[in-house]
């Protein structure tokens, strides 16, 4: 008889809700693929400069979603498709019409020019958007989650980053913007929730501000291990409900970046900072306990990207990334993207994004799920320790229920025991046995007849792996 001691999480723990960013085409079958991955949410870009007029009208009502100068067509479709597929949309308001920007970005350095947007104009647009997707406008679904801009610590998405003395400038500009955005959203529905930042992962000299540095400056905090508020009241505080990061990692799930970076191995740093900022009253959100989300993360896969991560390792690292993110208190984890980018005749795979959970077929119906898809849908990890074999997982679609744990022996899967998940599908436990200590073997979880991707007892050391191959 196997000695087995397993239990659901002993203390209340946050769920691990998964989502998809980079949905690509707004087609029902693509949203269906996202839902089939176990994701409950989908992040869509609400491009302000696409919806608002290119020229500022002499007479118009920017806070009115029905103003004829607005064109919401494409995002209406996205929101409808998402909701129809059973996904909760998160709208990230990004970009700005040139008339709403207070400077002009140098050419060729940005994906979509965004230079010091006007907070008042952003607030007005936020009101219009929140009104349109309040659930009470034109039969459109409600959107409850709103992100104010994207990766404002990257020159790629926000300019300027530095002032004339070479000191960070964007955190202060962004504070004004997120506060205005929050005011606009909450003025329509106070129960809507605002995500801040979506910070890129690393400091790059002259191009990005490291996310930890950006966050400290944004929140008027200082210090590393024991963050403390700086002097002053931080302009009355920073208004948002959820803090969002994009910890793209140049390595594996334990990889740490520099002191101001936020890669997978650095996640505890931001958790510590947010707790301290909450305690200092810097974050004027609706909860008093600021949630931490990750709304963009991925590694390219090989195949099809020769520079991407080999599929077996990718599957392992996805499960580990989810586990480690959950363990530091992250409640939401979005994968970028659902389908590989289409191959381009004049460009090698190394220049396109091949991080989809599906291999791209000629049509969506011909898409094929990667092994990574199953790892994302049913994450499971198991580690041999001195006390025994510890394991953690989350059921597909976060359903509650009984989970069987199986060990590979003699070419067969043998049941080792079962555990009950919590209401969010999280399960964990410890086998009091030595399986895997010789770095051999496989362990998997089975839920309602569905097996997880087997987790190897042979560890994989961290190595350099650019996230985009």
């Amino acid at each position, binding site marked *: 008889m196997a000695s087995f001691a397993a239990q659901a999480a002993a203390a209340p723990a946050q769920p691990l809700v998964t989502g998809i960013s980079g949905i690509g085409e707004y087609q029902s079958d693509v949203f269906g693929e996202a839902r089939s991955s176990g994701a409950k949410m989908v992040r869509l870009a609400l491009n302000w400069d696409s919806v608002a007029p290119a020229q500022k009208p002499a007479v118009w009502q920017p806070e009115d979603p029905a103003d004829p100068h607005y064109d919401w067509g494409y995002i209406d479709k996205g929101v409808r498709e998402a909701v129809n597929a059973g996904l909760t949309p998160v709208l990230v308001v990004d970009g700005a019409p040139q008339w709403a920007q207070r400077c002009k970005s140098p050419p060729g350095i940005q994906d979509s020019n965004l230079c010091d947007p006007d907070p008042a104009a952003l607030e007005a647009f936020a009101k219009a958007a929140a009104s349109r997707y309040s659930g009470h406008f034109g039969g459109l679904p409600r959107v409850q989650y709103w992100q104010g801009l994207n990766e404002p610590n990257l020159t790629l998405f926000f300019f300027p980053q530095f002032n004339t003395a070479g000191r960070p400038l964007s955190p202060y500009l962004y504070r004004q913007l997120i506060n205005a955005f929050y005011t606009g959203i909450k003025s329509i529905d106070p129960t809507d929730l605002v995500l801040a930042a979506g910070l890129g992962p690393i400091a790059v000299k002259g191009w990005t501000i490291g996310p930890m540095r950006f966050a400290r400056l944004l929140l008027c905090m200082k210090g590393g291990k024991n963050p403390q508020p700086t002097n002053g009241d931080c302009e009355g505080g920073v208004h948002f409900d959820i803090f969002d990061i994009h910890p793209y990692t140049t390595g594996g799930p334990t990889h740490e970046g520099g002191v101001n970076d936020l890669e997978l191995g650095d996640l505890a740093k931001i958790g510590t900072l947010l707790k301290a900022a909450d305690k200092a009253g810097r974050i004027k959100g609706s909860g008093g306990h600021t949630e931490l989300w990750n709304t963009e993360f991925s590694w390219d896969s090989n195949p099809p990207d020769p520079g991407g991560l080999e599929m077996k390792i990718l599957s392992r690292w996805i499960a580990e990334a989810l586990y480690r993110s959950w363990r530091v208190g992250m409640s939401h984890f979005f994968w970028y993207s659902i389908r590989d980018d289409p191959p381009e005749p004049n460009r090698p795979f190394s*220049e396109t994004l091949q991080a989809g959970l599906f291999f791209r077929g000629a049509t969506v119906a011909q898409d094929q799920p990667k092994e990574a898809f199953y790892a994302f849908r049913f994450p499971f990890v198991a580690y041999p320790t001195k006390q025994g074999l510890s394991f953690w997982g989350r059921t597909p679609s976060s359903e509650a229920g009984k989970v069987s744990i199986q060990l590979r022996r003699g070419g067969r899967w043998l049941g080792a025991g079962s555990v009950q998940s919590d209401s969010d599908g999280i399960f964990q436990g410890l086998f009091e046995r030595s399986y895997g200590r010789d770095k051999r073997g496989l362990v998997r979880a089975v839920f309602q007849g569905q097996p997880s991707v087997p987790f190897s007892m042979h560890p994989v050391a961290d190595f350099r792996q650019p996230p985009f191959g």
Partner: protein
Amino acid sequence: MQIQATAQRTRLCLLMAAITLAALPASAAAEAYVPPGNSAATQYTEAVPTAGGPKATTHSKHGQSKSPDRVLGAHKTAKLDAQGPQGRAAAEVAALTAPSAVGAKVEATAASGPGTPEPQGGQTGSGGVQAGSGSNAGDLSQSGRSTSPGHTAQAEPGGSSGIGEVVGQATGSSSSGQLGVWLPLLIAAVVIWSGAYVLRRQRKRPTG
């Protein structure tokens, strides 16, 4: 003949000054900020560590630069690499005048050493792995290093926008000691010297 030679030298000096001025991009303030070799991927990927210091990642393992589509949603697909030859040429020229130190220090690191991806935190004797929470998972914050935040007063944009800061950033005028605004002054000095040289030579030549 001497007058023709003087005229030729005058034209040569003016031509040299004109070429120097023409080498500047039409909008130096806007383009001087752009360093060469950047692609979108380098703002997400650690630099490659080398013996001579970190090197920005401009190529993948297979020799091609990576410029993924970072635009969210289906509506836009713009890519930096689509700048084409003009964009590349502008960057080359700008590289000659761009300031090199305008902000955050390089945070590039080598890949960390091998490590078994074991769960951290204590494990209870009764058999359960401790539930993951921020406090139980172990604080991986760096030891002994803190970052001083910029002074709010200094960094706040003046007036209604940060346009002054934008121009300053674009021209690289900073305390970092880079060429920045000195370059236009230097060019002006060359032009003035060239003209003064010509005039002096003309005065020294005997007339008639």
